């Protein structure tokens, strides 16, 4: 069990994608489903670059794909990503955490680590933490997301 647990603990399935040329990876367990974006407009549907507050607001999406995030609650949370690349299992030893100096700021954006894959730096993203921070900010600022 420990081995298994260690073994399980030692690997992680990541869904790799890229938006605006930046590669990201999220834990496949946080993803409830993937669907093609058909232009739908909904309150629980967010554009990825808006969620991460890209400076470049005009980010282009080659093949927008809607990723449904497991929230564990009633309210759903869907994010539109681009260029979904792979779902693979990676060793946790390969994951590098942010320096302590940067970690509070990175965690505030839901970023929790960096994984180098074939010479490419993949930013690991926690949508659930991002969602929590977002809700906290909404509550704290009276309905206005400003964190």
């Amino acid at each position, binding site marked *: 069990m420990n081995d298994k647990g260690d073994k399980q603990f030692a690997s992680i399935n990541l*869904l790799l994608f890229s938006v605006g040329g930046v590669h990201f990876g999220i834990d*496949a367990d946080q*993803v*409830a*489903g*993937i669907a093609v974006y058909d232009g739908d407009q909904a309150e629980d549907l967010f554009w990825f670059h808006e969620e991460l507050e890209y400076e470049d607001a005009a980010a282009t999406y080659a093949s927008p*794909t809607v990723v449904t995030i497991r929230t564990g609650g009633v309210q759903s949370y869907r994010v539109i990503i681009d260029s*979904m690349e792979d*779902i693979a*299992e990676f060793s946790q030893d390969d994951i590098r955490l942010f320096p302590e100096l940067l970690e509070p700021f990175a965690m505030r954006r839901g970023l929790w680590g960096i994984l180098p894959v074939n010479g490419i730096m993949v930013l690991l993203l926690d949508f659930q933490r991002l969602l929590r921070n977002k809700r906290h900010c909404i509550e704290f600022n009276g309905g206005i997301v400003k964190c």
Partner: protein
Amino acid sequence: MNKLPYSRKMLVAAFFFCVPIALLSYFLINNILDQIEFSTKERYGVQYATPLGKLLEGVLEERSTALLGGEGSGVRTSLDQLLVGVELVEARLGGVLATKGPLQALKLKISKLNGVRGATGRQSFEAYNAVAADLLGLIVLVADNSNLTLDPDIDSYYLMDTFSTKLPTLAEAILRANVIASRLSNASNSSIGDRTDLIVLSGQIKSLVDGINKNIRAAGGKNAKLSERLQKPFQEVETSSAAFLKVMAISASSGALSPLNPASVAKAAKDATGAIFRANDVVSSELDGLLVARVSGFRNKMTTYLSISFSLFLIGVYLNIGCYLSVRCGIVSAKEVSLKVAEGDLTVEIPVLSHDELGEMARVCNTMTGNLRNIVTTLSDVSGRVHSCAGKLSDSVEQQSGFSTQLSSSVVEISSTMEEFTSTASQIAQHSQKVVERADKTLEDTKNGAAEVENLSFKVNDISQNIQANMSEIVELGRKSKEINKVMEIINNIANQTKLIAFNAALEAASAGEAGKRFGVVAVEIRRLADSVVESTSEIEGKITEILDSVNRLVMSSEKSFQLIQEGQEYASHTVMMLIESVDGVEETTSAARQISLSTQQQQIASSQVVLALKDIEQGVRYATDSIQNTNSVTDELMELSEQMRKLVTTFKVSKDGGTERAGENS
């Protein structure tokens, strides 16, 4: 006349002025002298006729005495005395009046009267009648020879006529009538014809009295005083004659020879003859007075003419001398000034002494001298300028000579060049002929080329149609490639959906843990398959895109080719048109080449003519060169002449200042 000095000219003029006056005076005076002589001769006639009248009176009285009875010796003495008076006059005037012969005949008849005293009354009567007739003829002769019958004045003429012809004849007629009447009173002495003679004599007497009255009226019509002086004696003549005629008429009208009263007849006859001879004396003296007055008038006229002529002569001499002196003064001063001017002194002037022609001439000469002075001054400047201009002209002529030489050489060069040009023109003509031949060949080739290009145009048209067809096929191919592309999109969509499904399956497999690993493997494989499909479709899409690009390029190339072919077709059409136009142009070129050939031949001829002309010009330039050389020599001569003229001008003195300035010294 022109050779005479002016003084002699004036003398000649005076001579020809005075001579006519002298001649005129001479002829006038001569004429007057003739008239004086004429009138003097008339006076001679009067002086001669007066004693003749007295002699006639004596003869008539003696005839009456001899026929009617009375003392004859006393009468004889009276006739001799009267004849002495006539001879005295004859001695003085007989030569002038040529009365010598008739007077001798008269004296002879008078001397014969002594022989008829014892004869019958009729013989005595006839003898006395003959003497009376001679006396009357002598009186008429004297009148004729003394110019009395040619008297020019009316009064003297009629007095002369009365004096010389009328009164003596009247007296003779009255006394003869007295004798005849006396004879009629004595029947024994009467003869046949006496009464008839008496009647005839009465008519003569009456006629003579009328004539005398007419003469006296005519003479007195011009001279009133004369008429007054003559009125009384001739009144007596008329009255006594009328009384005699009355007595004679009473006697004659008594019809059958009634006896006359001789005493009354004789008394009437005596009264009448007395009145007649008194009147004759009066007429004689008046006539002489008129002639004396006429002679005196002539003398006065002659004196007047002489005075006028002499005065005119003196005036003429005075005027002539005055004119001579005036003219001489002007001429002498003009001569002196002219001599100075002739010596070259132009500063002198003729003094203007009169306002006549000489004064005018002096003014004109002064003006002329002034003008001459100005002319000489100007001529001096002009001569200097001429001298300098002649020098410049000489330089110019020398330059011109050089230019002419250069021109001659240039003309020679031009001639040689023109000869070369002529040969070149000949070559051009030959080449032009070749050009004509070549143009004909070109025309033919151009026509062939136009036909070939037209065929080419047809071929290009076919190609264009084929390309259009190919383009349609290619466009259809592109359209089908696009349809394939759509199919590929569908496949790609399916692959993507398959991939998503594979992703979801992988997610599910991942979430399923160990149990889902195999499923995950399948999902991965499916995803890989989908990826390979996507890659394949991508490759297909790439290939199709390449095909489409190729098709597009092919289409564009075809369109471009089509456009090029169309352009080529247009060019071909245009080329055909141009070739057609070229045919025209080549034809024009051919004709132009022929014209050029002809023109070149003409040019060749013209060039030959130009060469000849240039040779003439060359000859002319040689002549011009010779002429310029002559001009140069003439210019040198002109310079010498101008120098001579300048020297000549310096001989004139044109300024009074200093008296030494000469014209041309400044220049």
